[in-house]
């Protein structure tokens, strides 16, 4: 991960800790980053330096105002105004890691074709915790391209149980 993203994430975590809501801010920041990842138009608009920073900040506030914590809106607005929209995903991921470390836990990015139920999320978290030997928080990303199943990424380790992966293995077998 880029050192600059880590520094931004540290700054965001410091602000959130000061506000006493690091857990919520990191979660919301992760969601905003995924939303940005899923919308090319939004990502390009917020990354366009031809658009005035005030205008980009206004877009962020319009999108998040009333739906996220003020702290989350402020840090996202600050990142966008600094012209680091393209680093927002990395910053959010690192912020989540920082939050998990503060709580003595790890974070697993879990991709599924459909949204998990609460029961499935709890069981998956428990299974990943048992598999890695320490407590794991999961951050779920709905990604229909995996067709089905689950892809869990914990640090550098990837546990791929997706239908797309199975088909790829089958194709390689042939």
């Amino acid at each position, binding site marked *: 991960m880029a050192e600059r993203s880590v520094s931004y994430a540290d700054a965001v975590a410091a602000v959130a800790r000061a506000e006493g809501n690091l857990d919520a801010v990191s979660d919301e920041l992760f969601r905003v980053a995924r939303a940005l990842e899923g919308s090319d138009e939004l990502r390009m608009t917020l990354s366009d330096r031809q658009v005035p920073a005030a205008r980009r900040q206004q877009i962020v506030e319009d999108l998040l105002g009333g739906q996220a914590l003020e702290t989350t809106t402020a840090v996202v607005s600050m990142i966008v105004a600094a012209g680091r929209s393209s680093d927002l995903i990395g910053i959010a991921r690192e912020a989540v890691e920082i939050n998990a470390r503060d709580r003595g836990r790890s974070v697993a990015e879990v991709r599924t*074709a459909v949204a998990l139920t609460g029961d499935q999320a709890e069981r998956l978290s428990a299974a990943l915790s*048992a598999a890695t030997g320490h407590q794991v928080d999961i951050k779920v990303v709905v990604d229909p391209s995996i067709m089905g199943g689950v892809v*869990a990424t914990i640090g550098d380790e990837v*546990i*791929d*149980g997706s239908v797309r992966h199975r088909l790829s293995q*089958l194709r390689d077998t*042939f």
Partner: protein
Amino acid sequence: MSRRLWAAAAVIVAVVVLSASAASAKTVGSCILDEIAAAEFEGIEGEGFTAAKNLKTLAAAGDEHAEELKVALGDDLEGCFDAPNPIIPEVKEIVWGGLAFVVLLALMYWKLFPVVKNLMDQRTQRIQDAIDDADRQRAEAAEVKANYEAELADAKAEAARIVDEAREQAGAVRADLQARAEADIADMRERAAADVEASKRQAIADLQSEVSDIALGAAEAVLGRSLEDPEMQRQLVDDYIASVGAGQD
């Protein structure tokens, strides 16, 4: 050699004798002059030629005595016209000729014969040298011929050896070319077989790939329809959770 010398000496002696005899004989003129000088003309003035001249004048004048003396002188002069013996010279001529011969022979024996003998010896030596030189040249020619024949024999042997070597080399080259050709043919056959095998494997792989694409396409189509079922999705997630919980991925 000595016979020739003696023959030459005899010829020289004969010439000397003849010339001596010829030189010793009186001529007609001298005989007449001697007779006139020795004649005595009784009753005629003068002596010798003067008397003869006066006698001629008196006889022409019709003096009978003078005419008789003139006739007598004519008879005496007739003897001058008689030739000497052509074969047998006079004794004194023989003596003088013999002395001249002896002197000449001594001179020849003393001076000429050694020179002639020396010349003959030199000529004999030259001839002998020529003969020896001819023999030597003949021997040298024979030696050259022998050397030439030996060199010719060597050349023939060398030529035969070269031909043999060339034949052996040609055979080796032919064998090498044949071996190479056979190796090339074997290599080409092997490559052709490998190409055929590779093409075969590629065709089979392409066929398998195509078949697998078709099969996988069909499977994905069927699977896609199945994955539209929420229960199927739930089951896949549950299976994943179960496998992770069991320590499998």
